[in-house]
């Protein structure tokens, strides 16, 4: 009985502790260079994907008009239900040929832990790319350049 009780108490304490612990995080500079496509400027959503391939957190949204968020279909299924406040992590849409640099914040615990980062893009009246760019969050990848497959030509990341 005693062991069980001790185990329970320590489990609860640990649980509480884990809640109160301030997770260490790092800011990354992230540059998105678009291809020279024509048409409306693109909505680009950067998300953290857990090892099971599911959305875990929205890191940045290029596109400040929530009216069109549902065009980013897959992400909308995740975000649309809760609609957290994104004010601090939104920027303007990105036009064809241009580039944008933003700063994203990623918990250190997610690096080298099977998590991925996803860049999905949507342009009004044109295609939607769920995985325009997606790569695992490894300490190597977060300071590299990755080619895109849709509206994005490449993405460069760098820890700040």
């Amino acid at each position, binding site marked *: 009985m005693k062991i069980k009780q001790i185990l329970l108490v320590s489990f609860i304490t640990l649980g509480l502790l884990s809640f109160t612990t301030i997770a260490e995080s790092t*800011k990354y500079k992230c540059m998105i260079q678009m291809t020279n496509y024509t048409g409306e400027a693109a909505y680009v959503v950067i998300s953290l994907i857990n090892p099971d391939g599911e959305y875990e957190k929205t890191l940045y949204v290029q596109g400040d008009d929530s009216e069109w968020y549902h065009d980013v279909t897959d992400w909308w299924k995740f975000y649309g239900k809760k609609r957290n406040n994104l004010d601090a992590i939104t920027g303007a849409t990105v036009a064809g*040929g241009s580039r944008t640099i*933003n700063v994203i914040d990623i918990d250190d615990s997610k690096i080298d832990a099977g998590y991925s980062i996803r860049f999905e893009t949507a342009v*009004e009246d044109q295609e939607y790319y769920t995985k325009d760019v997606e790569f695992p969050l490894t300490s190597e990848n977060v300071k590299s350049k990755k080619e895109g497959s849709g509206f994005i030509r490449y993405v*460069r990341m760098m820890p700040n």
Partner: protein
Amino acid sequence: MTISIWRYSHLALAVSSFAFILLASITGIILAFQPISEQIQPYKSADFETATIAETLSTLKKSYSEIIDLQIDANDFVLASVITENGESKTGYINPKTAQFLGNKIEVSPFFQWVTNFHRSLFLKSTGRFLVGLCSFLLFLIAVSGSVLILKRQRSFKKFFSKIVNENFNQYWHIVLGRLSLIPIIIITITGVYLSLEKFNLLPTYNTSHNINYDAISESPQLELHNFPVFKNTKLSEVKFIEFPFSDDVEDYFTIALQNREIVVNQFTGEILSEFNYPLVTFYSELSLNLHTGKGSILWSLILAIATANILFFIYSGFAMTLKRRKAKLKNKFKKDVCDYVILVGSENGSTLPFANVLHEQLLHAGKKSYITEMNNYTTFIQAEHIIILTATYGLGDPPTNANRFLELLKTTKQSETISYSVVGFGSYAYPDFCKFALDVDSAIQLHFKQFLPVFTINDKSVDAFKQWTNAWTEKMQVPVKIAEDKLTSKPRLTNSLTVIHKTEVINNPDSTFLLTLKAKKAKRFVSGDLLAIYPANDYRERLYSIGKVDGNIQLSVKYYDTGLGSNFLNGFDLGDTFKARIINNAAFHFPKKAANVVMIANGTGIAPFLGMLDANIKRKNVHLYFGLRTKQSLELYNSQLESYLQSGKLSRLEMAFSREIESSYVQDLLLKDEVFIAKRLKNKGVLMICGSLTMQNGVLTILETICKKYQLEALSLYQKNGQIQTDCY
């Protein structure tokens, strides 16, 4: 092209697009306040104009650990995206010289965002964008067709902005505001169309591509940021945005967008690696956006808001006018070929139709077979005995649209010559060509039919004058016609408040004439020769008096009649009393500005405008006055004024005629005696002005006609046409 096609297009365009234009205008007015709300923020630094890129970048580098980019918006606010020493990322406005953080980036409020979206696409995405763009284009066409209508009305480019007469609230303001907001509206629509074309990729596109030779890129010779020549020589005010190098890699660089080009700068050496000149289309795009939204200028935003608010008024007043025109439709009970009476109407905006309709109804009521139609529908009328023409005049003496083919039809249509006719002209004294078309019709129709009554003219839709005519007509025709005033009257607009400041007694004058001096409360612009309209019983009955402007006041000369409506009303006032009246611009009877010689001919109270004109003759033009009264005693009323004008040289010569003295004479006799002088005046471009009774006018005109013939001058009508002979008689 005729005016009706333009008007029809103007209307058709408006009908087809007004719903969208209405929505776009309402949202547009709201949106005009977005740039204003931004601009009143205190984020513009006094140093902005003088700062260089070098200064700003070096201070920024010192203050923040990392800078992502820098943007300068239309308000000249410097927006920086930075990471602070604490690793916090911030986007906000900074002072370009001190790098002081002034405030966070202004986020467009969800409300303005929502309205913008609605304005751009009505929430219909591409379809909506297309509709809005199309309607913007239609509005442009509406503005163009509207301008053509104004041009047609005013007859020349020069007169485009000259005064028009306020006959009808909707029409007047539709034109006045239309002219004022024409340029802003054209700019709004053109830029709106441009922005739509841009959205649909219908404009030439380009890519800002830089050709950088990465093999030749070098880290040396390294310079400090503030020593880069291009940074030192470029003012921040020329910059649109600066993108900082992504990393310390030499292949990462500064990208700087200037007004007309984009340059790429080596982050170590300051060397310009590549330069790209923007095509003209970027300039137009930016211009369009700023002009359309009002970005960067509070004044322009306000102008846009006001011009857009005017669009709402145009929609309202335009439809109100159309409905009014439609309402005044002509209805017939009998077929044209069985009717004895034919009423032909010429009207531009429908205001003459009620008069014609009332007459038509009365004839039917009296058991007569009457047929009413527009003048352009003139055709054969087999049974017709009498034709009544009621017509307005459009623009400068032209026929109204629905009567513009009448004179032609009159010539080509075969009609019984036993028909008699009467012409009634509707017009306004404010136009120099008062009722000109009615007079033209009268002289043309004389060749075909018998004149039943002389042509009769009506100023300013006066019901009273119309009654006078119907009375004369009824008496002669023996057909009872009673005019119900309530159907025709609109309340007169009494705009001038007048105070009696001087009045002579009726009993002191042998002709029961008195002088009345009135002070206008509002110093409204008027000149001698204009008319004062009073409404003694506060109903449709109007009395007109010719104004003499003496010392800035209105001086009237009024003959008192025991039963006179107007004279009793005016005589009833005591000093200090105030009443309301209306001043009518009588452009056809103003003291000539150009002519050097003027001859004035007056009898009785007709002297009133001349007393004012002489008072204003400070240039001492050569003026001769022929003045007829009954007795020498009658002159006492005017003597002091006339004497002072003679002494000051404002009046060169005064010739008097007294009809009730022993040596009875009339002004006509004076003219005959001076025929050589009068002939010379007419020949030398002098102006003859006649004011007084109609009998006197007719007498004078007869004498002038003889003089013209005798001295081989032009025909009298020519002098009347070119304004050398002006009349204002009653």
